[in-house]
């Protein structure tokens, strides 16, 4: 079995899908690993470090792809590379099947199986493969670090001989995986952290990290069976708006993480609310790639509204590529092992297995 991966477009994606550590694991599990040259160079993983553990490297992309059994990537391959693929190959990655449906469909007629990992069910057994969790977690952390770095005051309270610097107040919108990590990170830096979410279970979770939960009054639990959020009613939106408007006046930093799977991100911070914020405040919008949680979010730009900086990256993990790659590669490895039939030494696409069934792009 040959596993391959080729370099992504480095402008859009700095993460890699196979780290040396994981390559070693593949090889000791009986796979061959074949990568494009300079695969991990930008993260400090030299070609030698791969070759030393038995990975083959080549700069012929076509050669690599055509001889592959399993292709592991982050994003979907370019159209050009996609056309090289041949029968019975397997592609694993975060393929964004909603947007790439047509492309994938076109090629999967060749009997190529695409597995898109963001489709993983949120079940306990799938946790070790859950790229959404592992990446969102880092994103939540980094969003806080970025916003602190852009904030022109100090975060923690300091009582000094030259007066007191008050602790910064941070609001985290959406307390999912990313939101919780954001809360934890802001909290440990000494900020006063507030958070809000539509799922009632998140209150206890927020408090378990030392955050203060802002409950939108009279709200039902808007949690789906899978643990995701539902879209909110208009009435709820109104109440949430009122609550946040008041709160935001004294908030210094906002980290937005609210998402609804498969939908555009809900716009939660309206124009009027942002206008009321203090000059100098910072909003980091992790939902930027899905349209943003604020009225002004523009991905990859710092928008200044009356002194409030609003920012968000298309791919914040490019700012933390090493850690993100480590976790991603491990997730994919775990996924592949689950797909692999050890006895017969081949891939077995067992559609009885919820994990395989759900991730297979149809």
């Amino acid at each position, binding site marked *: 079995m040959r596993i391959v991966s080729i370099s992504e477009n480095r402008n859009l994606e700095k993460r890699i899908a196979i780290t040396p550590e994981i390559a070693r694991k593949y090889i000791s599990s009986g796979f061959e690993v074949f990568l494009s040259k300079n695969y991990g160079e930008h993260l400090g993983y030299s070609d030698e470090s791969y070759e030393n553990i038995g990975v083959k490297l080549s700069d012929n992309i076509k050669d690599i792809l055509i001889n592959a059994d399993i292709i592991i990537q982050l994003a979907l391959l370019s159209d050009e590379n996609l056309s090289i693929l041949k029968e019975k190959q397997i592609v694993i990655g975060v393929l964004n099947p909603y947007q790439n449906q047509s492309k994938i469909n076109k090629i999967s007629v060749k009997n190529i199986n695409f597995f898109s990992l963001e489709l993983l069910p949120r*079940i*306990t*057994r799938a*946790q*070790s493969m859950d790229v959404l*969790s*592992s990446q969102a*977690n880092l994103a939540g952390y980094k969003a806080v670090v970025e916003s602190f770095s852009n904030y022109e005051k100090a975060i923690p309270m300091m009582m000094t001989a030259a007066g007191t610097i008050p602790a910064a107040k941070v609001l985290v919108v959406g307390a999912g*995986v990313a939101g*919780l*990590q954001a809360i*934890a990170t802001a*909290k*440990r830096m000494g900020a006063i952290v507030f958070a809000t979410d539509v799922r009632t279970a998140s209150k*206890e*979770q927020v*408090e*378990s*990290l*030392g955050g203060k939960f802002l409950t939108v009054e009279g709200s039902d639990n808007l949690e789906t069976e899978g643990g995701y959020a539902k879209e909110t009613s208009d009435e709820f939106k109104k109440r949430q708006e009122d609550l946040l408007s008041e709160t935001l006046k004294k908030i210094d930093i906002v980290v937005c993480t609210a998402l609804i799977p498969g939908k555009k991100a809900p716009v939660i911070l309206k124009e009027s609310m942002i206008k009321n914020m203090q000059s100098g405040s910072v909003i980091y919008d992790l939902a930027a790639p899905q349209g943003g949680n604020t009225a002004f979010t523009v991905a990859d730009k710092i928008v200044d509204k009356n002194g409030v900086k609003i920012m968000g990256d298309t791919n914040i993990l490019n700012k933390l590529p090493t850690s993100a790659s480590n976790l991603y590669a491990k997730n994919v490895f775990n996924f592949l092992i689950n797909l692999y039939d050890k006895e017969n030494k081949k891939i077995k696409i067992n559609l009885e297995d919820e994990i395989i069934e759900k991730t297979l792009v149809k």
Partner: protein
Amino acid sequence: MSANLSAIFYLMSGILFILALRGLSSPETSRQGNYFGIAGMMIAIIVTFLSVGNYGTGFIYVLVILFIGGSIGAFIAFRIPMTAMPELVAGFHSLVCLAAVFVAISAFLKPEAFNLGTTGNIKLASLIEMSLGAAIGAITFTGSIIAFLKLRGIMSGAPIIFKGQHLINLFLGLTIIFLIYYLCISQLPNIFWIIVGISFLIGVLLIIPIGGADMPVVISMLNSYSGWAAAGIGFTLENTALIITGALVGSSGAILSYIMCKGMNRSFFNVILGGWGATDQTSKSKNNDQKPVKNGNADDAAFLMKNASSVIIVPGYGMAVAQAQHALREMVDVLKKNGVKVSYAIHPVAGRMPGHMNVLLAEANVPYDEVFELEEINNDFANCDVAYVIGANDVTNPVAKSDPQSPIYGMPILDVEKSKSVLFVKRSLSPGYAGIDNDLFYRDNTLMLFADAKKMTEEIVKSL
């Protein structure tokens, strides 16, 4: 031997018994305490021989008998497995009670030997004392037997309750009092026998409605009763040793059972009055009839951990909810000061966020080199004395390994079950995130500590 001299020796033996109990109240002096007890007993026996001063054939017989009894006792004591201690105490106890009954009978049959008047014309006070002694002895005898049977598992540990139980007990109790009164005025031997017989019955009725879990309290209480019986006989025989020891055993037994009740969070009166507590108990254990859990308190946990050589801490979401990390750190500090090796085992999905436990432990300044991930530490559980599971649940659930139907099947788990004892700190038996029951709660080496994680940990620190 002069009465004065023997009185002084009896006093000495009483004091030795006091020292014995005193010694037993702290682990450091406990063995010494036992020796005091032995010494006291030896003095009492020898002095009795000397003051009775009868060295005929009877004396030989007594020595032989003493030797036989002693050998049997010693044999049992060495052979019995350590796990059977409570029932052993109950069993032994029934013997003393029976002995007390026999002494009372003997006194009743031949009062002259004890200076109590003559048969059929026994002194009033002595008659009351001896019939009370016999009655209490008989009650505690059958009571101890029942306790023994329940603990041994020969009889079901479940409370046996029937309608009118309390009424019957009340009736029998009143009957005894009436009979004693009647005995005093009539001096009829038959009445005496009836008293003993009914008392045997009361002993049974009193203990059957008490659940197996409460047996230790019951034994201590029976101990106390027999102390009072001994004191009563002491007054009859005008023997200081019996009076002191009886009062000592009586009051300390009562206090001990009170303390035990408090420790187990039981109502003292419910337990000693038997059936009253029964309703309460059944309702509590409704949801796991067949699966009893061992319920511990902070002192037990402290004791176990203090005497362990290695402890592994397994934190979970409950620790986060309770914000128990600081208390936990403090507990570990104290343990380490006591020479215990402590490490933390972090399950990859413990908590509700990746790295949830790490944040909290870092906040409490737990050094990173004491924190291990699952693969690093999972083998260590087999060699560890105590796993302290604080607010974790799913991540320890062995069903993940055994039951493919379970929602957590296939998740690697922390093998806490392999450690010698497992302490589970949580508020109830309710399940965790995955919503499934955890088999470990019902294991033999598991002690459940039902409380808020922070509160319990703080209490343990106090007890350490």
